[in-house]
């Protein structure tokens, strides 16, 4: 009895101390960040300079970047800046994964916020659900980025739908042996998704890494890297995550 109470007490104490340490850390980070960078809602020249300075130094860059976005913590302006940074960094495909299920309804708003931020930045942004609108820059070779928004509807549900339609023989598939191989199933899956490469990098923020159902079929080699523990999306953390990514070598298997 006594030892149980002691154990419970120590358990509570341990978590209390951890909460205190993490809390203090967060306050420190926020204070430090406030002091060093003004909280702007638009992309600043300093942001872009930082990216242009560091990104060319990296040995490798993601082709397809996914940002796990949660409307409870990230504003549309945060995400719009992310689009511009990725464009300047030369990332060809950027996707937002809609964790809280709000972003899909706000695509128009995001589009407008990006347009507002894009002023003067060379490059072309293609929205997969929109026709090409925004322009080309007078023959100067500029970066091009394709933006997608995915939600949990594009994950398990899509795979389930595929299997259903395979059963009903609505979609053709190959089956050479008793059991369908991953390659044969991949042929079916790739026909359903837009033809973009599998994500190489997923950026998350907050204290815990969780996919929340992000594209199960496509994430087998995706690296998960944290942007910040307090959900803050700053250009420094973006560049920092890119550095982290470029140091990893990609291997198959364990």
């Amino acid at each position, binding site marked *: 009895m006594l030892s*149980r109470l002691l*154990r*419970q007490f*120590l*358990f509570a104490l*341990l*978590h209390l101390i*951890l909460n205190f340490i993490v809390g203090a850390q967060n306050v420190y980070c926020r204070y430090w960040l406030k002091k060093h960078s003004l909280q702007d809602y638009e992309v600043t020249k300093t942001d872009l300079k930082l990216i242009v300075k560091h990104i060319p130094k990296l040995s490798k860059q993601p082709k397809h970047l996914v940002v796990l976005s949660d409307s409870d913590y990230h504003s549309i302006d945060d995400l719009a800046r992310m689009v511009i940074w990725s464009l300047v960094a030369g990332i060809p495909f950027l996707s937002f994964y809609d964790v809280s299920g709000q972003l899909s309804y706000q695509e128009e708003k995001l589009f407008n916020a990006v347009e507002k931020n894009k002023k003067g930045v060379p490059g072309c942004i293609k929205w997969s659900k929109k026709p090409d609108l925004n322009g080309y820059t007078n023959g100067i070779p500029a970066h091009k980025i394709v933006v997608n928004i995915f939600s949990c509807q594009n*994950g*398990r*549900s899509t*795979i*389930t739908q*595929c*299997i*259903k339609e*395979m*059963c*009903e023989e609505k979609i053709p598939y190959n*089956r050479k042996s*008793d*059991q*369908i*191989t*991953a390659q*044969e*199933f*991949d042929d079916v899956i790739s026909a359903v998704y837009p033809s973009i490469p599998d994500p190489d990098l997923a950026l998350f923020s907050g*204290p*815990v*890494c*969780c*996919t*929340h*159902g992000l594209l*199960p*079929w496509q*994430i*087998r*080699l*995706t*690296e*998960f*890297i944290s942007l910040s523990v307090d959900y803050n999306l700053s250009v420094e953390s973006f560049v920092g995550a890119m550095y982290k990514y470029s140091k*990893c070598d*990609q*291997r*198959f*298997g*364990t």
Partner: protein
Amino acid sequence: MSLWIKENCVSFFQLFCIKVIKTGRVPQHIAFIMDGNRRYAKKNSVDKSTGHHKGFDKLSETLKWCLDLGIPEVTVYAFSIENFKRSKEEVDALMELAREKFQNLLDEIDQIDEWGVRVHVAGRLSLLPEHLRSLVSKVMLATKDNNRLCLNIAYAYTGRDEISRAASRIIDGVKENKISPENIDEELISQSLDLGEPELLVRTSGEVRLSDFMLWQISNTVLYFTDVLWPEFTIWNLLAAIIHFQRNAPPIKAEDTNETAHEKKEFLKYLEQRRAQELTKYIS
């Protein structure tokens, strides 16, 4: 002494810490990507197979810790289908290691039963050499009634392959009129897979990707990446992962009150039977 579950690897103080941590929520299913055996071998200038042996020893220690923590299900990624592409020498050594260890398990089956460990090997078994396939089938059938700790070993496994095999079974089920297409949903697919959903996934050696492990199952899993190499993994690393889980775990999902359709239940039972038949076939 048991080889699969290492006894006497927990000091009095460690046991006390385990008991303290256990007062809180403990993951009901924990998965490990046991990465870093080869890097460990390189670091300590021993050959790769020594690294893999060390890795197995660590697994037996980890199983003891999990038993002490009261974790009822542990899944480990032992060998990926992609690993068949490694040098013949290394693949042969790994197959030999598996054969030796599964043979040991059968030899000490009384102890395994005493611990209540159920061993399930998940993967495309048809890719294994015949003797190993029959051995793992024997192990699975011999331990199928144990229920204190379920140990899933992903061998000749990838997440994509697992989904594809589940799809094949469901398609066959429809063809044989065991299930109708309307009854195919995410839940049915989840239950047709080899592995269940873990609450915590630990990957060692600093890699931050899944490497095609449990792709379908980890949608709501807490992913924990740590820099330590697998053979150097200690109880403190495990406890740190569990504390991280306790701080950040999503709330426990309320049990689905909806009755699963009768047809689905029947279908899943049928799958179970088919699997058992397949295993018996592999033995003979």
